[in-house]
């Protein structure tokens, strides 16, 4: 069963097209990443999924229903926003007990969810006294009070330090494994998503450019990719692109991901040191087929742009 189905979803703000004819479906028991740069349309998509924004065109169904002003759906979804907002002057445990009463669950669940996110020691603190990391953990606890089947989280780790990010992702993994909760996680911090997601939707300029489980996407976009690690990535990229059998090359701060024509890998391994020598670049390593999620993202986007 699809938890979320979006078809032809579009939203514009004035002249800016935020989401453009977007299609997406999310299966139960999955952890799906919605990845893309800032301004790609992730938050707008999520807001339409949550019924906070009305699409200009297209439709979105969550658990088979229109999410706009639909209380029934809210009993099945937990929501975590980039910045968590709660009534600031209420204490964490007291507020979660209120949320328990809202959803009609036992108030003992409030402490359970605080313990799940290791916030039991902050149960007597006012919400405004929580640090950014604690507040996001509290937001996750808040989203889990009613044991939702699906948690939708928009950039939930964006403002956190690496340790807090790692802790939150551990919580996501644990909840998925132990409580069978499906997640839709949007993020522009890709390495962290590769830890938890089994499928990703690559979103750019308001459209889904690639969607599928990670292994399928790696097979589709990253097989045959050669990774060149160098101290002069952009200069070497220009030289590599001049090679006739190179189909694509993308550089980043650490190196270059290169796709070459079938059967030309050996030739590439011979040519690259020569090119590096020519521009006085230092080659730190060359290896085949080890793309990160960031590289996968770039490869999928550049493959789409070439079409």
């Amino acid at each position: 069963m699809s938890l979320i189905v979006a078809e032809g979803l579009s939203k514009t703000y004035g002249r800016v097209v935020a989401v453009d004819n977007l299609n997406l479906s999310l299966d139960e028991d999955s952890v799906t990443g919605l990845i893309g740069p800032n301004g790609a349309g992730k938050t707008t998509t999520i807001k339409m999924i949550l019924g906070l924004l009305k699409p200009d065109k297209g439709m979105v169904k969550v658990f088979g229903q229109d999410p706009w002003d639909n209380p029934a759906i809210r009993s099945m979804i937990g929501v975590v926003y980039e910045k968590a907002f709660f009534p600031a002057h209420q204490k964490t445990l007291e507020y979660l007990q209120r949320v328990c009463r809202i959803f009609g669950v036992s108030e003992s669940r409030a402490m359970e969810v605080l313990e799940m996110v290791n916030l039991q020691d902050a149960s007597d603190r006012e919400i405004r006294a929580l640090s950014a990391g604690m507040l996001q953990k509290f937001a996750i606890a808040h989203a889990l009070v009613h044991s939702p089947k699906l948690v939708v989280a928009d950039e939930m780790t964006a403002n956190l330090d690496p340790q807090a990010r790692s802790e939150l992702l551990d919580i996501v993994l644990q909840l998925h494994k132990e409580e069978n909760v499906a997640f839709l996680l949007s993020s522009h911090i890709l390495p962290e998503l590769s830890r938890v997601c089994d499928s990703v939707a690559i979103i750019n300029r308001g459209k889904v450019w690639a969607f599928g489980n990670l292994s399928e996407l790696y097979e589709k976009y990253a097989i045959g990719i050669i990774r060149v690690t160098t101290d002069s990535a952009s200069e070497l990229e220009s030289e590599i692109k001049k090679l006739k059998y190179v189909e694509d090359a993308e550089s980043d701060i650490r190196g270059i991901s290169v796709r070459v024509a079938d059967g030309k890998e050996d030739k590439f391994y011979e040519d690259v040191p020569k090119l590096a020598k020519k521009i006085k670049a230092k080659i730190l390593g060359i290896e085949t087929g080890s793309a990160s999620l960031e590289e996968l993202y770039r490869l999928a986007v550049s493959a789409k742009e070439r079409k």
Partner: protein
Amino acid sequence: MTDMGKGKPFLEVLASAIHEDYRFPFLELFAFLYAAGTFVFASFGVNIAAIGTAPQAMATANETIAYNAVNSILSMPLFIFIILIFKNIAYGLGSDLEKGIVQTYFSYPLKRYGILTAKLLSALGVALLLFLGIQISALYVLAPDIIVPQLSTVLLTYAANLSYPLLIAGIMLLITLQLRRGGISLVIGLVLYFAMSIVSAIATVFAIFSESPLSLQILSAISPSVVLQQYYGGSLGSFWAPAFSEVLLYTGVSYVIVALVFTLGYIYFSRRLNL
């Protein structure tokens, strides 16, 4: 899985809104000011009303005394009440929209109109109960002989005086929903409130010079305290001596306008508000 029974989302959102709107020291401070203002002014006002009021053509002497008694204790506490409800709408609802707390409320199993009703009950309803409760109690304690037989006059006077502040509250609601922040709507609310006394004075001067009540009649449609004042002792008796039915009509019309403005707010919040 957690067993899910029947929740009480409306009551809990209301309780949460009251917790935020009336947290210390607002409730205590405003309750004290209401009470102090009401009782201090009542002790003078009720006596003055009883002694100094001549019966008017359209109202009985007892009605006029009751009207004057209410009117004399109303102004200061009403101003405090208005500040409180404006603060609640601008900074309660406005900051909830601005900071995103409304988004959190939208994750609860409650229709949008339920969320707005809870917010408005907290911002307006609780303040109104507090205001009327203290005022009417004070009047009853200080002048039961005047107030008890004239309860309908007392209630009508409150209704006529409250409709314009409620209209401003409705306009502030629309502005707050549109702008998603409370600061500007608070300023506009206060300007509209103070503008009424200027507009009222201009309308009265215009009515006197033109010897036509038209300007005051128009004003009465949004602020029926104007027609009520004429009914119970206005100085324009030569060309405008409204009947009681007219007072009821203007008061009714003003509340229809208030209801329309709030209905617009509800429609916008339920159907149009994108977050």
